[in-house]
């Protein structure tokens, strides 16, 4: 029971991470295409300003919970995906620093360096997270000793790349919607029209990815065994539809919220399909790392899981509470007076 709860919490943490950091990664990728001058660039940086650091901690928490609740899976995942994770790490490092350093020196060359870091540092995480998770969905070549075979290039298979494209699109759309909230004037119009143009592409890619998932993975097994679970699909599909509706009505907060719900829904749909595997083995299902006894049990002891559940039940609601307050405090569009970055 504890293992199942933790499996779901593990999925929720990743889902919230994608839904929050997704928009600032998306804005980082959109910046060179949407900003026409230095002021607009700064608006984009400052639209993420008060939030990006707090958002990124959801990744640390998701990684930490993988370590705490499923140490065998953490060990196999992080060592097996070594090079991909190092690239993700370097990207997040230069991105984080670019926020803080860019505006400190008034020179075009200096700013160009950090602009480049911001774009690469936003694109690579989106792509790599998509590639990594798609590969987890289809199973990784894990042997009976939890050692993964193959390197970075093996991850770049067609389904893995499809996952990368999906994540990049999800985050681009999410970022365009956030910028529609936080920018004013021309920049807002460009952001909103970008979101509107991305929508049919995103909808098509989601449908194609779902169909591809049917053939490339075993994610639908749980759903076929228990068709009521298909109701989960209402969440991402409903979110996707409502993005379009609310975007047309220029209700940007609602559209962004729908996008966040969609990202969470997509993630949970996949996580429920994965259960009980955290890392399915493509070599032999018995070698999959699982939350329960179905494969190689990757969970921590009941005592650790119980203590960690107590910690999560106390602190995660508190975190959500104060992060909600921060979003509310800084909800208005960025103006000239607000520029700190």
């Amino acid at each position, binding site marked *: 029971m504890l293992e199942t709860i933790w499996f779901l919490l593990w999925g929720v943490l990743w889902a919230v991470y994608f839904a929050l950091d997704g928009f600032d990664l998306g804005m980082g990728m959109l910046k060179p295409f949407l900003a026409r001058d230095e002021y607009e660039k700064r608006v984009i940086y400052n639209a993420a300003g008060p939030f990006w650091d707090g958002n990124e901690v959801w990744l640390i928490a998701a990684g930490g919970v993988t370590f*705490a609740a499923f140490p065998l899976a953490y060990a196999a995942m992080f060592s097996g995906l070594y090079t991909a994770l190092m690239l993700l790490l370097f990207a997040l490092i230069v991105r984080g620093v670019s926020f803080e350093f860019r505006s400190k020196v008034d020179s075009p060359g200096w700013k160009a360096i950090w602009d480049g870091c911001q774009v690469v540092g936003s694109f690579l995480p989106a792509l790599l997270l998509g590639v990594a998770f798609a590969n987890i969905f289809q199973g990784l070549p894990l042997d009976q000793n939890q050692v993964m075979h193959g390197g970075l290039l093996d991850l770049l298979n067609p389904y893995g790349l499809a996952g990368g494209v999906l994540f990049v699109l999800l985050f681009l759309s999410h970022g365009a919607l956030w910028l529609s909230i936080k920018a004013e004037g021309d920049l807002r119009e460009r952001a909103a029209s970008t979101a509107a143009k991305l929508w049919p592409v995103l909808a098509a890619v989601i449908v194609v990815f779902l169909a591809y998932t049917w053939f490339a993975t075993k994610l639908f097994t749980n759903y076929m065994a228990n068709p009521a679970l298909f109701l989960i699909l209402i969440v991402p599909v409903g979110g996707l539809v409502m993005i379009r509706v609310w975007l047309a009505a220029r209700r940007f907060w609602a559209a962004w919220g729908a996008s966040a719900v969609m990202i969470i829904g997509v993630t949970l749909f996949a996580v429920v399909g994965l259960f009980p595997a955290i890392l399915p083995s493509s070599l032999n299902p018995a070698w999959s790392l699982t939350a329960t006894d179905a494969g190689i049990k990757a969970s*921590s002891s009941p005592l650790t899981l119980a203590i960690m559940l107590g910690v999560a039940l106390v602190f995660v609601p508190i*975190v959500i509470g104060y992060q909600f307050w921060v979003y509310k405090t800084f909800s208005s569009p960025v103006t000239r007076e607000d520029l700190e970055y």
Partner: protein
Amino acid sequence: MDAILLSRLQFAAATMFHFIFVPLTLGLSVLIAGMETAYVRTGKELYLRMAKFWGKLFLINFVLGVVTGITLEFQFGTNWSRYSAYVGDIFGSLLAIEATAAFFLESTFIGVWVFGWKKLSPKAHATVAWLVAGAGNLSAVWILIANGFMQNPLGYVIRNGRAELNDFMAVVLNPFAWQQFAHTILGAFCVAGFFVLGISAWHLARKSHEEFFNASLRIGAGVALVASILVAVQGHFHGNEVARIQPVKLAAMESHWETRANAPMYLLQIPGENGNVLEALPVPSLLSILAYNDPDAVVKGLNDVPAADRPPVVITFWAFRAMVGIGTIMPLIALFAWIKRRDIAKHPWFLKLLPWAIPLPYLGLQAGWVVAEVGRQPWIVHGLMRTSDAVSPIAGGQVGFSLAAIIVLYTLLGAAGFFLAGRAVKQGPDAAH
């Protein structure tokens, strides 16, 4: 080269670089929060300007600490997966608690601190500063409880082929961890004190912004004095704990080879990996007294430890000497600064010296962690798991690539940060950027 040596080098590089920034974050965040509270209480504009000037330097430092911290959490999985699998039940949960209970708070409110000057009242802003400072120091508690488990594992049982938690409170209340926490935090306040002291002196030597930097210098001198005295006193008790729990580390710190009562310390000593190259001018019983507060105490020597269970002696010995040496100089400098704080302008040579004292506590902390971590070898978890059994089953080439990338990337980022901090210092308070 093999994955294990490269992974160790990578861990050392990533951790030592991360720990350039963390101590200043821990100490300076508290000083800035104090300045904001002083502004709220007195309404004096000076304190607000102080919080903003030191805050600007704080932020440049803070972001480098945050982004390099992610590397550390990842590295246990990427490079030390066997360790992660073996002790993750305990160690992983401590890192997860750190993220949920402390790091979230710190990272969320640093954004509010930066962007909230106009949106929040001075009182609310000061509260945010205290939240950032408190959360940072709370982070340190959990990280050092995790490290404490590696130094002095408690509260576990070996079951299912791994170390499993059986007493959470024993892990959390690990006395060794709390000694390390106290030593690290006091060291961090030395860093913050000497940082403020040195930069203030740099400006005072140039007679710029004298009111501002005289006031800052007094804060720096006070903090540096109290912290450098406390870190030395507490360090003695921390040393007693090391002697009791890790006698082999103690022997390596002193390059002490013969097990004996009334163990002496040598004023002139050159250590080697198989015995001292030179030992002269012994002070009788001094080592027994320092380690156990008893001249008759028996101090274990490295000759009684199999060579395979000994840490690298030369590195541990000299790192300990460096730490203690710096720990001795710091209170003297801080004391002089404190005594002369009201007429420091009469001592221009001292104002010129103080900026050069800024690196001292940094070097002391780095040396201290070399003692703690190198001195723990060959164990990754003292007495429970060897470092050589902990490394991931990965190719050396991958690690070579990431190590090279980390060194290049960190050097560039460090240089950029140093450049920015230097610029901000020279511009002084009230600069636009």
